[in-house]
């Protein structure tokens, strides 16, 4: 178990940044968002939740897939004007596709909360099952996840109901587990990746004997708080795998969806949403094909030529929560797609969110 005092965390950051790209919560313009650390950036691990989750590390909001440009192959006009006159002489232009170089250098995601780490697992089930998304795969393999325990969970958190332990990130699939306990950061590598990272930057740490007792004390403190959170006892009864027909036709949706604006806030702040759209962008020298996050709440989400996407806001609203709490568990043997981070609870402009939906169904019985 290693530790480092909180005041010279910057030394830790620059040590990590020395050999890896460091992706961590950075406070800029009054908000804390994940971003690449560089000298002088203000790392912020006190704020419990960043606005957007750390999902960007593995599945960025915008990712260029490949670029295409046109090469003019001089048509066989060399044979003289008559050849040119012949209508059937095709003017041959060749399309050259050049894929984007996949991520091949290791990078560290620092300060990820337990819920976000679980969200990575949720996304792995989607992106890493065949057909494997090798853009995601390359980032996932090169990413070293440093999880951080949540000192004081907020009332919008409800990760415990998905049996995520905010106090002990080592339970989650992270490479390193860290705790911040009164002015000191305790660092416990879990996987070999974690060991390798720790070895690289071990000079920064000092060994700490009574780390375990401190950490147990912290765990007890966090569990104590977690119990008092308003949504601690939220029951997922009635949700999960194979609940489709029961939930789909319920008339509770009619009552709950009315306030929804159809904006994309909940989907863009959610750590587990993984729907994306592929679009083209014409640039100076060809086409740039990129993929970008899409929101099932948007009116033109999955709009096919015939116009058969979900037409009303009720259908879109229902789709979002059914995907989180029914469809995903059905396909992933009961694992819920929601990790209870509470970002949508905080950020929805009309204060509609998954907790209210669960409660509305519970009351309706």
């Amino acid at each position: 178990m290693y530790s480092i005092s909180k005041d010279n965390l910057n030394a830790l950051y620059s040590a990590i940044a020395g050999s890896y790209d460091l992706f961590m919560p950075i406070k800029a313009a009054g908000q804390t968002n994940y971003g690449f650390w560089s000298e002088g950036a203000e790392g912020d691990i006190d704020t419990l939740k960043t606005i957007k989750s750390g999902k960007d590390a593995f599945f960025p909001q915008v990712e260029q897939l490949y670029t295409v440009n046109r090469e003019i192959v001089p048509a066989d006009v060399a044979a003289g004007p008559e050849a040119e006159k012949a209508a059937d002489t095709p003017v041959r232009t060749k399309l050259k596709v050049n894929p984007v170089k996949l991520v091949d250098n290791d990078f560290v995601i620092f300060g990820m909360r337990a819920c976000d780490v679980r969200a990575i697992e949720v996304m792995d089930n989607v992106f890493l099952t065949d057909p494997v998304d090798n853009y995601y795969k390359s980032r996932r393999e090169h990413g070293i996840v440093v999880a951080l325990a949540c000192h004081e969970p907020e009332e919008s958190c409800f990760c415990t109901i998905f049996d995520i332990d905010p106090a002990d990130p080592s339970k989650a699939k992270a490479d390193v587990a860290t705790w911040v306990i009164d002015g000191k950061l305790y660092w416990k590598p879990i996987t070999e990746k974690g060991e390798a990272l720790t070895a690289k930057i071990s000079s920064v740490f000092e060994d700490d004997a009574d780390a375990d007792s401190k950490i147990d004390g912290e765990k007890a403190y966090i569990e104590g708080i977690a119990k008092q959170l308003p949504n601690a006892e939220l029951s997922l009864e009635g949700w999960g795998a194979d609940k489709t027909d029961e939930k789909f036709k319920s008339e509770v949706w009619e009552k709950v969806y009315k306030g929804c604006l159809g904006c994309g806030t909940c989907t863009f702040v959610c750590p587990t949403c993984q729907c994306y759209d592929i679009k083209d962008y014409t640039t100076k020298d060809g086409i740039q094909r990129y993929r970008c996050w899409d929101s099932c709440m948007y009116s033109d989400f999955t709009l096919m030529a015939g116009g058969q996407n979900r037409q009303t806001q009720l259908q879109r609203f229902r789709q979002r929560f059914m995907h989180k709490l029914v469809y995903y568990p059905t396909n992933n043997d009961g694992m819920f797609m929601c990790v209870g981070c509470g970002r949508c609870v905080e950020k929805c402009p009309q204060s509609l969110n998954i907790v209210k939906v669960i409660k509305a169904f519970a009351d309706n019985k």
Partner: protein
Amino acid sequence: MQELINRLKELIADGTVVRAIGWKKGDMPYNPEPAYFEKPEDFDDFVYDGFCGANLSKMMIEASKLEGKTAVCLKPCDTYSFNQLIREHRVVRENAYIIGVACRGKLDIEKARKEGIKGIKSVTGIDIEGDGEVVFDTIYGEKKMAYSDLMLDRCHVCKGKDHVIFDEVIGESKDTDDADRFEEVRKIEKMTPEERFAFFKSELSKCIRCNACRNVCPACSCRKCVFDGTKFDSQQKANVDSFEEKMFHIIRAFHVAGRCTDCGECSRVCPEGIPLHLFNRKFIKDIDDFYGEFQAGKDPEAQSPLTDFTFDDLEPKDAVGRGE
């Protein structure tokens, strides 16, 4: 608040309205949600307190299409937006029964979070009739905050507490206007171009393109936004290149210029806390400077400045470089 609930029940009972739009208690004390109320028992979880900041006039676009009248609770600043929607034929005035609800400034939970108030269990002192401090009962003990410190920025520059359009008014409003509406805009105008550019660059780089500001704005009521449609080949779902946010925010502010009633909803709902009102207020300030005082929504017959002109309007070259 109780008087409001009784009146709504009465209206539904005597058939004047078929449904009412108001706020339903949220699962947290600070997140009531706009909802429909039809049956008397729905009103059990009706709430109207300091945290009911949403502008319900935009919901009336859909509601006024339903048959039967709909009662809607509108705060003073929402009534300007309602007037603007009437002027643009988006709501049917006859299908709306407007109840002007009192307002003593709406609260912003982000301000409490900035003060480090966490683990909130319950909040007192936020009802409309009361005054004095707001008391948070949290897991980490009791925390207090003055009502005006918790208030949304927009309420500090409130346009006045009298409703511009209503069928009846319930409750006493309290004035909260204690700041100059264009002070922030002037502060930015005085900066050097480099500083202004840096300020907007850092603010706009937070934008995650969630369109909450567009979908909540009562002036932004197009059936299909130009950024969703293919009319301009400007389909911009995500920030492919760095220019897109700017284009989105400038054009959005431009489309509502002369129609924006400065209700402040866009800044309230932005998940990244970008001060979007600075764009709209800049246009409002410019319109006032160039073409004379104009408050959108105040008088539904008035011609919007951008669909009007005079022979000796100012030249575009004199619109810039006024600062230096």
